[in-house]
């Protein structure tokens, strides 16, 4: 990672123009951050450029690729399409918050590792967040066609789709057996 982190509240807004700034509290991976942002800052850029949580990726900035997928109160959302201010008061989960605090990988992370369900790794956080959101849905997670349909908003240009499907099904079996 970079040697330095950015100050979350200052330095990235024009100090001479504070008229439009909004102060908000974002709860990310259980931790509350106070941010002062202009109202047009989307959640993805708030996470990446202000909080240095760079696991969610920017692949299109238009809600077309899924690389920025995070969980909002457990639901998968494109964080590039959500204004940061609108995420206030909700539980935001990013890839950085998926593993246990002791470092034990989430079953979906373990399954991705074992099934080589990635290549470059750029879409991977988005794929896993989307997968996590459907793992508890018994109908979706059992049936390959339903998984593929549900995950089709998450592009993997490396084409590791086969292994991603295997990983999601494997994680589902792990969770069901647990």
């Amino acid at each position, binding site marked *: *990672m*970079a*040697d*330095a982190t*950015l100050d979350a509240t200052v*330095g*990235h*807004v*024009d100090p001479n*123009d504070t008229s439009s700034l909004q102060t908000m509290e974002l709860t990310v991976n259980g931790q509350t951050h106070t941010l002062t942002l*202009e109202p047009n*800052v989307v959640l993805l*850029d708030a996470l*990446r*450029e202000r909080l240095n949580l*760079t*696991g*969610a*990726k*920017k*692949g299109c*900035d*238009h809600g*077309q*690729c899924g*690389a920025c997928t995070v969980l909002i109160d457990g639901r998968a959302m494109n964080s590039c399409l959500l204004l940061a201010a609108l995420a206030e008061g909700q539980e935001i989960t*990013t*890839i*950085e918050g*998926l*593993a246990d605090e002791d470092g034990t*990988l989430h079953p979906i*992370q373990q399954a*991705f*590792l074992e099934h*080589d369900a*990635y*290549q*470059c*790794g*750029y*879409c*991977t*956080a988005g794929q*896993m967040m989307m997968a996590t959101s459907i793992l508890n849905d018994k109908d979706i997670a059992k049936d390959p066609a339903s*998984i*593929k*349909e549900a995950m*089709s*908003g*998450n*592009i993997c*240009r*490396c*084409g*590791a*789709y*086969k*292994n991603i*499907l295997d990983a999601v099904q494997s994680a589902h079996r792990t969770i069901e057996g647990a």
Partner: protein
Amino acid sequence: MSETLNTQKPRIDGALKLSGGADYTADINLDGQLYGYPVGSAIASGELEGLELEEALGMPGVVDIFHHDNFDSTLKHSPNSFAEKNTVSEPRLPFEDTTIHYHGQYIALVVADTFEHARAAAQNVKGKYRANDQVTSQLDELDADNVAGLPGVLQEGDGQSRGEADAAYENAEVTLDHHYSIATETHAAMELHASTATWSGDHLTVYESTQGVVFQRHALSHVFSMPPEQINVISHFIGSGFGGKLFMWPHAIMTAVASRRLKRPVKTVVPRQSVFTSAGSRPRSMQRVRLGARADGTLTSIRHDGSNETAFVGMHNDTVISATPSMYACENVAVTNRVGEVNHGMPCPMRAPGEAPGLFALETAMDELAWQLEMDPVELRKKNFAERDPASDLPWSSNHLIECWDNAAKRFGWENRTAEIGAMREGDEIIGYGMASQSWEAMRLQCSARVTFLADGRLQVSCGTQDIGTGTYTIVAQTASELSGVPIEDIDVRLGDSSLPSGPLSGGSFATATVLPAVKAALDAATQALIDKVTQDGQAFSDVDSESIELNDRALTYGDRSIPVTTLLEELGIGQVTAEASAEPGDEKNDYSFRSFGAVFVEVRWDPGISRLKVERIVSTIDIGRAINPMTARNQVEGGLVMGLGMALFEQTEYDKSGYLYNANLADYIVPVHADIPPIDVELLDYPDYHLNAFGARGVGEIGLTGIAAAISNAVYHATGKRIRDLPISIERLLMAN
């Protein structure tokens, strides 16, 4: 075989990639950084007469705007030489002149304190243009036989033509003459191109999403007239590139200039639209294939005339005929490729350049010939199997194409195919079977690496190549582990940094064959350096002939004596022993021809009632020499097949008549998604190719993408009787075809 090589190993960088900890370029946030946002031309051809900047300059947070009138006039062109490792994608410098050559050409770079401010101001920079009435496209009315009069460059295929193709064609018992075309495609790697530049005195550090840190360092060195040693290019993790990130693009120069002028780090993440317009494509290609054969299927003539579009800002020959001279035993072969300029952004290599488009045409033509001859398409190919490379007349280093055809056919169930069109049905669906051959040239280049024995028992391996997702980190660790006995989890692999010993581009499927021999050479050198120390007077092996000492299982051994490396380092009182070494190919290319081959079989389903075409399953058997890590290697082939499915059915970068690229986003440029993916069965044969290197590996990145588009189009013909020779096979195209 060993425990570590040719073994499925999870990626050693997996934990980082799965936790959000891998630092891709845009993830790097430097203290005090500014944000660059480019402005692209709204027209494709004409003159930029001026820029309206006042409003943008007055917007919040804007620090400066760079453009033609205030840019750095001291910059020089890179010589653009592959041999000297300074190739650039677009030779023209950013803002070099005011002529507009393509839609999206950068006309300004806004730099501001936040991403949002830079973007907002960029949207308010307006160009004043004098547009040409129409864009120039030398290939607009092209079919490959009428381009000879165009000012495009004639490329006779490197002397690969042989015999008398035209005369043999005239005398052939059976002939075929067809035209094929493939739309412009875009790499569309998930990671946006990005560059962060920061200067410290006269040293420049660039964080770049690149498939070649060394190439970019050398190119920047020429552009900025600085010694390479004062420049470092870093790319620890790359969100893949598929050729689009092989060579430097103008955004990197713009960003470095802005950083120097403003004395702050500047980070430019290229917006997706600009990645489409201004960061490479596989150019549109037009091909004509003429085949002559005897009635028994023996090929007597192959003539393959190709052409591709290039940009006015640079020459790119996509060499779509590159595989043709080597594919089949045929005494009379002629290949040409011509290139014509068009007002589009600069094209560049895209995964399996040459072979992927070229084998679409050739392997579709072979299928057409099989139908004409009423022969099984597999049998036709077997009939013309080349026992040695007919292009070079050298023996193959290793060639198991016949086994590929046989195995894949068996796994697929090819014997169930009926030789009539549209005769296989299930419910409302018509089933089509198709197949094609696959091929990619195997290459190996020079490479350096460094190996360090560390006091804590770990082994560090460093090389100035990079891992774009292919698994280079992991196979380097596997190799070092295999040769040293150090467990794979105790190997530190450092890549993606141009200050490391010079390594190759991540491209052309040559990284594995190139890097691993250098890792071995560096480990041998480091071992020798350690032996030299421990055989000196008073040291542990001072009584021993140094040539009899071996590195085994993380210890130096001589007969029964075995002392761990860590103990030796402790006794020597030093923290590490390190050595750098190089490895390069010998003269094996004079003795053998190196190619990988494969066979791909496809089933498609056509439902005429609802006009739905889908690929039902894919089977491919590939001969790539030895796979160092079969898990990551198979993943590469599967990914190539998926991209080939996109090439066959979906992908086209679309320009209107004014040259405007109108589907420059990931919703309108259609790539395969989960729902498009059928069951894929990939078999990797295991015939190590020791003529190419001691590891037997020929590389695996490209070959999956070859042949697959032809196999799909051949299957579509089998199902529908419609021969679609233009990619992509869109539903509209299929419905309109006779």
